[in-house]
């Protein structure tokens, strides 16, 4: 990030404009939009309906020059939140950096000590790994900490115009903390009501690392803009989505919350009728309900997914790059670009 941006961020942090926002979260200031005529989501559209926001956003995108490294582009700050046992934080931070963000690996203990730390960031990402060893269930302890000790902080963050991404263990944390599938407003610190969905043991009963084909199923999720198909590896033991009541699927679909599904092959047609039939291993590697690999919240600003897009930043990470003569970027990078480009 260059120095001009740092100054601007500080400015926006103290600006009156920000204080009037309900969240108090830092976002790129409106003022910047006039000086830099592209690349920022206008804060003033905060109360607009989702769709109109996207329209505005698309127009902005179209005006953008193709060079992403253009000097005057402001880079959103990304909090890659790590806990004991997190182990994909370096490459996830690298992914955001490649996409043009400014990523910082932040230890959960720092946020527990001072929850205001989170206010410096526009994007929260919980990366993969085995937080607390996944000892009492994948993502449970990390999720419980978010739910019980940081509930207000997280609520405030989610309600602001921010993005939240959970990859693999991060998705498990988002589910166990209640951030997903509801998103802002839904997360509850009460443990009385049973959750509607969970990520549990793979049907095979074991940890599995393999590449899967995914199709994007949500036109609302910010992270998936422009993505129809995506290949990425999964590497997990507890990635099978199960629900208390299958009827929840209807609401999820209506809200655009079903973000990613495992699919047969990269050319598979996306016919709606077959989607609910659980595909066999290895297409659906864990037996997930309705072949769901990723879930979003109704606002489209939260995404949790079991596959690892940060393991497909480069063509050479693809298992068949030597067959297909792939070079350059990997398709997984788009998820991080979408996040960065949102601001």
């Amino acid at each position, binding site marked *: 990030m260059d120095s001009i941006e740092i100054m601007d961020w500080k400015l926006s942090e103290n600006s009156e404009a920000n204080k009037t926002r309900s969240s108090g979260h830092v976002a790129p200031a409106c003022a910047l939009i006039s000086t830099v005529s592209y690349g920022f989501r206008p804060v003033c559209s905060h109360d607009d309906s989702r769709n109109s926001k996207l329209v505005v956003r698309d127009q902005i995108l179209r005006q953008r020059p193709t060079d992403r490294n253009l000097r005057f582009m402001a880079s959103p700050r990304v909090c890659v939140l790590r806990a*004991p*046992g997190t*182990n*994909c934080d*370096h*490459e996830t931070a*690298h992914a955001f950096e490649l996409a043009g963000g400014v990523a910082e690996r932040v*230890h959960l*203990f*720092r946020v527990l000590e001072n929850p205001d730390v989170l206010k410096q960031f526009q994007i929260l990402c919980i990366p*993969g*790994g*085995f937080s*607390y*060893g*996944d*000892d*009492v*269930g994948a993502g*449970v*302890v990390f999720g*419980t*900490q978010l739910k*019980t*000790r940081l509930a207000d902080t997280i609520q405030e963050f989610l309600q602001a115009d921010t993005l939240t991404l959970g990859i693999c263990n991060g998705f498990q944390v988002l589910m166990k903390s209640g951030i997903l599938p509801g998103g802002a407003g839904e997360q509850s610190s009460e*443990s009385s009501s*049973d*959750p*509607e*969905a*969970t990520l*549990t*043991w793979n049907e095979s*009963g*074991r*940890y*599995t*690392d*393999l*590449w899967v084909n995914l199709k994007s199923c949500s036109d609302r999720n910010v992270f998936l803009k422009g993505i129809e198909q995506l290949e990425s*590896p999964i*590497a997990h033991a507890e990635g099978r989505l*199960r*629900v*208390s009541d299958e009827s929840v699927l209807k609401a999820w679909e209506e809200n655009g919350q079903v973000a990613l599904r495992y699919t047969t092959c990269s050319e598979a047609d996306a016919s709606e009728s077959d989607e609910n039939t659980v595909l066999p291993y290895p297409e659906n590697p864990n037996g997930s309900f309705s072949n769901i690999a990723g879930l979003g919240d109704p606002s489209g600003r939260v995404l949790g997914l079991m596959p*690892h897009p*940060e*393991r497909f*930043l*480069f063509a*050479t*990470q693809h*298992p*068949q790059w*030597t*067959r297909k003569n792939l*070079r350059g970027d990997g398709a997984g990078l788009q998820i991080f670009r979408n996040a960065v480009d949102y601001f």
Partner: protein
Amino acid sequence: MLWEIEISSKSGPDREAEHALAEARMCRLNSLATVRSARSYLIEGSLDNAQLQQASGVLADRVVEQVTVRSLPDHSEAGQTERLLNVLFKPGVTDNVGATATKALQELGFEVERVSTCRKYWVNADSNESEVERFASRVLSNDSIDRVLFGPLQLTSLAVGSEQDFELKHVSIRDMDDEQLKTLSQTGQLYLSLTEMQTIRDYFRELERDPTDIELESIAQTWSEHCSHKTLAGRIAYRDENGERHFENMLKETVFAATQTIRKNLGDADWCVSVFKDNAGIVRFDDKQDVCIKVETHNHPSALEPYGGANTGLGGVIRDPLGTGLGAKPVCNTDVFCFASPETGFDSLPPGVLHPRTVMRGVVSGVRDYGNRMGIPTVNGAVYFDDRYLGNPLVYCGNVAMIPRGMSEKEVHPGDYIVAVGGRTGRDGIHGATFSSAELTHESEELSGGAVQIGNPITEKMVHDVILEARDRRLFNAITDCGAGGFSSAVGEMGEETGAEVWLEKAPLKYQGLTYTEIWISEAQERMVLSISPDKWDEFNALCESEGVEATVIGKFTDTKMLELKYQGESVGSLAMSFLHDGRPPVIRDAVYSPPEERAVNLDSETIEHGEVLRKILASLNVCSKESIIRQYDHEVQAGSVVKPLVGIANDGPSDAAIIRPDLSGKRGLVISCGMNPHLGDADPYWMAASAIDEAVRNCVAVGADPERIAILDNFCWGNTERAETLGSLVRAALGCQETAVAYGTPFVSGKDSLNNEFSYVDGETSRTISIPSSLLITALGQIGDIEKAVTMDLKSAGNVLLLIGETHNELGGSHFNLVTGRDGGIVPRVDFEKAPKLFSAVHELIDRGFVRSCHDLSEGGLAVTLAEIAFAGGLGAEIQLQKSGVDATVELFSESNTRFVLEIPSEHLADCHNVLEQAQLPAAVELGHVNESSELVVRGSDGTVLIQDSLKALKQCWQEPLSRF
């Protein structure tokens, strides 16, 4: 108050119970008709109902699980229809889940003292009493870590350990005669020889005092085979058909000597940085970083408790690079296992031996859970099967790590604090170093249970994180890992040149009740020892606290050249570092090698169905697909993956080597491969060693590694080397290592040996011993300048030409052809020391210039297996015409001659390829045939006879089937 939260599956299969029942069937426990299972948490503390409810919500997944809460002891009646078995860890065994649950519940503000986990099984009540007991001891539990409680739990508390009064113990060794010394060595689990015991006795006679128990233990740890490699680094009188040779230090004069010769030859271009002196070998990588590698064995613990043994084996070897120089960052793991056949009958198991299937499952899970949790990709490995590994499986674990240039040296300063970082010290792993140097017996399970441990990878990951940060902030002067021998070895080694004073009561303990000696020699996992200047301590300690890592000053380094051990202010041991490190009497051993007579293989061509032989070799355990194991390892974390262990059109073909990119912003890659063939050792250990090096190197070269930059490691696992013949075969292998490494210019940078890999038991009246085959693992660490030039082994496009590079000789000795057709005899594969390195360079040039679309080496099963593998991996057929027919064609197809590759070349590059070989003055490549779209492999003899015609689908199925359900 003690509570039990019992959790079971709401719906869906009870996998644990199904698995247990299937195992029971295999053990022929036929009266067990039904099994169901649950897991439970035993919680000691004061909780009210609301809190128990909330705790249940955290510990159970209420979408898929149901919960029962009860207070203990459980006064309910034993069930009418079912018997209940509870499996708990023995007190003191690491219970990671219990520990995490304790912390999680405490964080919720609950008054919880401790949490333990328990597995519960209900079997049909009319099952046979003794069968249920066998079920409990054979299937459900492992006696070295578990205990089984029958019926409703009657526990009242989970507390372990109690305060012990300090009592200084002396051992009156000065009065002991030889018999008494021998007894002391055995019963005290010191496992020292009589000469060594005599030396100790004489030393203390001179000092005119008796040693304390801790002094004896310190000496035994330091002098153990495990820590000092006294046999191989000792004097050996070796005799073979060429005459006699005396070694003052066998390893130094063979394996190390090869490295020295290579470094001298390289002169200024020497790319070794630190070899054979630190915990891992270090070589140059690029302008910013060096790379280090270490491979260890953890055989004996894995024989007793496969999960924990392999788990801590990998955990241990990861700490080696972390404790090398000023600390290196692990980037990948490699693991090689040797087991008896998983098809071994349960009835034929000797007493005290776990079934190979149980061993294999446990070992794979142990490695999986440690590597995956640490976030280190496991990218390379192999599994070998031989029935002689029955009581003594082998588990090799290796780690590769990156270290910034200029951080390879460390120095302890007198006055520095001795700081223990990471896990707490418990009674686990006591006598691991001495135990690993002893032979396994059917009683080992009882005798050495304490040597078995379970690791906590998350603790190690946290230690890893703070150490790398502290390294970059230059907060410590030296570091080493706490491995075998615990603090005793770590502090003893670090303070060898200076001296050290240790305050044993300062060491943080898992539970009360450890004696000062137990603290000193405990091999509890996940601990590192650092040397820190007092003025850096506060910053270091603050860093550790900020990440939840425990760091404790347990003493200081001195300039007295003495090891001073204190407990609560009182001296409990005082030994001169010089006696500890140089006082051991040299081991002098005889070694004899007599080459077996060469016999020709009977190749009556009438009886050979080549297609059938190929199928059998593909389906043999050593050759068949290991996908079911590989997929359980995270081989892509850290995002450096370039060539994966499985490649091809369906991502399931066997890659020759793995490539990773340790720096995501660079183009340079690391190539990791291995070579091993215990079958050859029976015929000729010298050529076995040469072949293992050749295999490791050619695997590396096959994916694109530069043969000028391949470092190798040796791991010798042998039987009892007190037998002159066994040691003779090892010396013979070491000589092979030396000559081959020099010829190939591949320096050994580190190595390790594990001797006494034998299993003894009593069969009726007879006492029997099974010695493992001589097992030399060579691990290769190669480098590739530009990862985008890497190639994989799967066929790419129809029309390309298949070239065989390298010469085929009649070398069927120790081959898989012999194995599957029940033949023996034949010459074992040799190596042409002059041509081989040239050939590697030529193949590298072809790959580097972009002429090669796929490349695969020839190894077990020879040309036939290579052709089948490249075809089914690529989903493309091939039509092959051999150069010979009849018996000679059999040799051409199945000989396992070294230094050979099959390359797939687009026809436009064919002339270039021939040119490169010609200019290197190598024999011309053989044009075998073409790749086609047919989905069939067809191989004809030179006379046109079809020798093999098989569909890719069938060949692949043969290859995938054997271990697919493992």
